[in-house]
């Protein structure tokens, strides 16, 4: 995959900030994705201002279709809850869980990958085995088991998704560290007597980051999809409205009121699509070899 290729960091450093920005603005995928993402993030931030009150309150007559009653432009669900309000508040949960899970996965993955790639030898062998071990367990099953061990709260769900997704990052970071540890600037840092932690953190890590940055958007997107699946199975946080949960609720009315399922699914798809477009754009600009040259 393109994300696993080694990005020449020099190209990124050499380009003045203005040129890098122009390269991003010329990339239609990146611009579309960013705009879409900004809209979703704004909706999430201003959710309680746009739709004050608890989205789980029953406010109207049940199962109103979109545009039937302009007080509820996107209709109401089987309990008379406002769908538009649920969608906007759900954006908050999805994004928070997605970002937290990605942060957890990135932190663990970067740590393990950096240590394995930098030290090599038996440490590397053991850590690679650990990555392979985690990759044989179906990630979604692992998330279900961890959530069952803890409580179904948003924090535990985010932790669980992070714990199931770190091996991918670890492989990426390990590959970067392996190729960079023999580089001249690392040798000179060693000759200056820098300790391993300092070389790893302040010398190699900044140079190893570009592919990790590209992978981040994919991690957030995957975490959002996983959270949706989990709350669809009724294992989500019961105190919060989430898109997956709305799909699960709407499922019983698939024959008569399929708009419930359609709307919340569209919200997930648009959010994940925006993240993927941003990721593709980042990849093409930061790693020009992978795109259409």
């Amino acid at each position, binding site marked *: 995959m393109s994300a696993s290729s080694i990005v020449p960091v020099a190209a990124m450093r050499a380009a003045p900030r203005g040129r890098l920005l122009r390269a991003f603005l010329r990339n239609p995928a990146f611009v579309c994705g960013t705009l879409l993402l900004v809209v979703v993030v704004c909706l999430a931030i201003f959710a309680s201002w746009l739709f004050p009150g608890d989205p789980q309150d029953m406010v109207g007559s049940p199962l109103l279709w979109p545009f039937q009653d302009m007080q509820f432009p996107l209709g109401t669900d089987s309990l008379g809850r406002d769908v538009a309000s649920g969608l906007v508040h759900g954006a908050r949960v999805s994004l928070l869980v997605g970002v937290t899970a990605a942060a957890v996965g990135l932190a663990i993955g970067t740590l393990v990958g950096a240590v394995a790639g930098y030290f090599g030898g038996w440490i590397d062998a053991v850590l690679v085995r650990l990555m392979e071990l985690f990759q044989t*367990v179906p990630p979604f099953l*692992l998330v279900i*088991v961890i959530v069952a061990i803890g409580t179904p709260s948003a924090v535990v769900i985010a932790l669980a998704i992070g714990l199931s997704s770190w091996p991918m990052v670890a492989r990426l970071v390990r590959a970067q560290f392996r190729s960079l540890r023999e580089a001249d600037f690392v040798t000179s840092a060693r000759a200056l007597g820098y300790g391993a932690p300092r070389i790893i953190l302040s010398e190699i890590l900044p140079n190893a980051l570009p592919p990790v940055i590209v992978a981040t958007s994919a991690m957030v997107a995957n975490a959002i999809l996983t959270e949706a699946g989990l709350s669809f199975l009724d294992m989500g946080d019961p105190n919060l409205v989430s898109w997956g949960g709305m799909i699960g609720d709407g499922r019983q009315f*698939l024959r008569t009121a399929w708009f419930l399922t*359609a709307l919340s699914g569209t919200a997930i798809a648009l959010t994940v699509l925006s993240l993927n477009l941003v990721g593709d754009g980042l990849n093409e600009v930061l790693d020009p070899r992978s795109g259409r040259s």
Partner: protein
Amino acid sequence: MSALARMARTLRRSLLHAVPMALGVVILDFLLLRLMPGDAADVIAGQSGSATAATMAMLRAEYGLDQPILVQLINYLDHLAHFSLGFSAHYNMGVLPLIMSRLPATLSLMLAALGMALVIGIGFGMIMASFEGRWPDRLLSLLVLLFYATPGFWVGLMAVVLFSVKLGWLPSNGDMTIGAGLTGMGLLVDRARYLVLPSLALSSFFIAIYARLTRASMLEMQRQDFIRTAASKGLHPLVIQLRHVLRNALIPVTTVAGLHFANLLGGAVVVETVYGWPGLGRLALDAVLGRDYNVLLGILLMSSFVVIIANALVDVLQGWLDPRIRRR
């Protein structure tokens, strides 16, 4: 070395690699499940409605739950060595027979989805690579982007609305018509009809992955020198595309397909719920909700074993696709 001997060697090396991995999986899963709140005795007590402290202690002693954790692990390994995965109090049968009764449904769903994802994904990728930058490429790229962003279970639900509710073409629940008493060809067609929607739902995300990957690696291959050589030899463009470009472009696709086998199994949990498919995924979910740890542990183990076997097969396949990959 003949191709067959080479494949046998790859297989042996993969198996040697797989054994410690399987042991590691057992220990990891065992420790995870010991972290679960409550144990089998609690569940049995809960089902029977009431239990005294003495009954609970008796139950724990009967299932070995009062032993230290290391002893429990050794006991479990001992049972495992005798091909026993323990007993499910909930279903009142051995865990291994229980899993084996559900495994074929999940495997057929997974294989159908994997096959569908590979055929459609590689097909899309080939078309996109051949029409790079023109409208078929753009149109399919958009479709693939949408597939990449949509949760599979939602695709499944929407497909139910369209194909089952509105059009009435395909069934939306279960894995066969109950009580139809079909045999032979009729049975096969009946099963296949029930398989279409679930495997479509499970494969949608993977279609997108394989299409993107095939497109990217075919475009990279087309720039290689040996492709120009083949073209200047006067080979037909179709032959070049299929025998030289596609074959080499398939190597990253098989790697990723092997890596995603575990994700496919995880996705099956949700898809099986959507379609009432009587497979391992539903069993796993019921086991979590019913705190039936032996069953859950058995399913985790079984799915890891399936993944390990799948990866060994991918190794062999890659050795055949590219003889240079003999040792890594």
